[in-house]
């Protein structure tokens, strides 16, 4: 971790100036059903879900395992076709865009699969430029600059020439984020980005996200299990349970003891802190 990450409270511009006014992402009554066989009853369903997000906004999707968080993220990413409803990004239906156009507007950070052959960090980040060039194209100077900048933005500039398989978990996650930034997206999707990271790396990553969404007006959607980090960094919380979206709203409105206890099935305590963001304490059975 670089020392600059250590600064305690992330500096935030006032809410009104930070968030854009227009709606960038509109999820409209989106539902999905998954069955192993079309003639069988579905194994999993996502009931109609709606929410909206503005430029610069961070939305956290919370919920226990198998509550439909990742499915919802895949639907927003456009790689799954919704059963009904639609997802609009700046007015166009995401699922009907070509994979290339989609990748120019939406970037996804997820748990990485193993690399088959070794690659340098800069080569890996350049993959983010794929959707912006033809299939047979050679990388331009612009691509190199964008990749380089993306690495610097996540504080990983010095990792440029390292091998991907020699990075620590936190370094690797930042490089993966840099690849997503190199796509120059409007919408940044993250699937449990803090999994396997130590606490400093988790905070570092979320600080970086906060900074980036403010400066570049990315709309960020993040699926996470970290209740307190979500409360600290998200502008909006989507609470999922059993394939249903229970509530959408700012953390202070969602973090109610009864609601969270019902969803997560653990006794817990919710305190409201000075800056209007709640904190959750899990109470061990006694």
């Amino acid at each position, binding site marked *: 971790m670089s020392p600059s990450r250590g600064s305690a409270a992330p500096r935030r511009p006032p809410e009104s100036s930070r968030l854009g006014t227009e709606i960038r992402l509109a999820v409209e009554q989106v539902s999905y059903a998954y069955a*192993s066989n079309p003639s069988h009853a579905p194994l999993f369903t996502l009931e109609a879900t709606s929410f909206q997000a503005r430029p610069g906004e961070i939305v956290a999707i919370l919920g226990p395992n198998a509550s439909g968080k990742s499915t919802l993220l895949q639907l927003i*990413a456009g*790689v799954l076709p919704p059963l009904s409803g639609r997802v609009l990004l700046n007015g166009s239906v995401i699922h009907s865009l*070509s*994979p*290339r156009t*989609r*990748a*120019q507007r*939406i*970037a*996804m950070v*997820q748990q*990485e*699969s193993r*690399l*088959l*052959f*070794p*690659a*340098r960090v*800069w080569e*890996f980040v*350049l*993959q*983010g430029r*794929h*959707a912006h*060039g*033809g*299939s*047979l*194209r*050679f*990388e331009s100077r612009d*691509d*190199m600059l964008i990749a*380089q900048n993306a690495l610097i933005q996540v504080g990983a500039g010095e990792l*440029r*020439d390292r091998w991907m398989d020699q990075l620590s978990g936190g370094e690797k996650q930042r490089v993966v984020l840099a690849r997503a930034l190199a*796509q120059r997206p409007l919408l940044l999707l993250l699937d449990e980005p803090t999994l396997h990271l130590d606490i400093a790396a988790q905070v570092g990553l979320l600080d970086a996200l906060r900074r980036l969404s403010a400066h570049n007006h990315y709309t960020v959607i993040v699926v996470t299990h970290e209740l307190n980090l979500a409360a600290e960094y998200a502008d909006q919380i989507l609470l999922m349970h059993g394939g249903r979206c229970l509530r959408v709203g700012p953390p202070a409105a969602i973090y109610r003891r009864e609601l969270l206890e019902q969803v997560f099935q653990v006794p817990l305590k919710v305190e409201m802190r000075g800056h209007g963001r709640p904190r959750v304490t899990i109470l061990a059975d006694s």
Partner: protein
Amino acid sequence: MRPLTFRKLVFECFFLLVILFFVVVVALKFGAVPVSLYALGRDLLRVLLGQSSQISSDYGLIIQNIRMPRIILGIIVGASLSVAGTSFQALLRNPLADPYVLGVSSGAALGAILSLIAEPHVALPPAFGALLTPLSAFLGATVTISAVYFLGRRKGQIESNTLLLGGVITASFLSAVIVFLMSTVNSSNTRGMVFWLMGNLSTSFQKSIYWVLAGGFFIAAGVIYATANDLNILLAGEKEAMHLGVDVRRVRFVVYIAASLLTGLAVSVSGAVGYVGLFVPHVMRLMFGSDHRTLLPTSALGGAIAVVVADTLARIVVAPNELPVGAVTAVVGAPLFIYLLRRRFA
């Protein structure tokens, strides 16, 4: 941080082309009948000057009608198998994939051997009779590839591991059938069958066949090369590739068909030459990196070099007899592959 440039690509290909040229010259020189380098150079010059008629007849016969066609066949077979191997490795995200492992070569060998068994019993016009074996081999390869493709499909999607295992099982099943046929069917042509099983380049074909092979190679390899950047991304994983803007379904379908066609073309004229599609891409990856924009053309050239060298060895090691070229590629290829593998991880 130095990205791939067109100049670098051309330079690397030129380097391999020079090696291929020397290999071809050596392959022309060596054989059961020795030919001096001087005579070779003189004849080459005469061909270039359009004075082919001045070439002395016995040398000319050996060079033009025996060795050169065989070398050209070796170049096409080697290039096709290597490009197919590279493509299958990227497509299935598995460094062990190659036409031989996927059972395609065994399918072709079975087709060829069936035709050798049937040949004496059916009366065919001689023009078609000469093509019977390669056509049967091509048919065998096509049927096997389709069978393995359907074995590897689950819920309408290709599953790499299932496909690879399906290929391995198919290959061992087909080998068993071949051994069964060879030990039960009373045929005068057992030696011919062994050659198909191990791969050989000694069959000579009409000129038009070479044009068909070369044309097929350039079309299929060109189609694969057009997806070079997509294949690079596919190596990072299918889900990631989707999010990075690769039309995974289309790329997989197109490359699978093209790589299968390359394999079918190669095995229909040479039988099951193993290891080329496996080790050439790996050697090229270690030399030039795993970027498919470089890897595909360098693998094609490297494969051509490897097969021409192997075939030359096959011709001269036990001269005036011959080894099947597949035996040479296996004997040389397997230890080389192990060495490279160990050095990589040392």
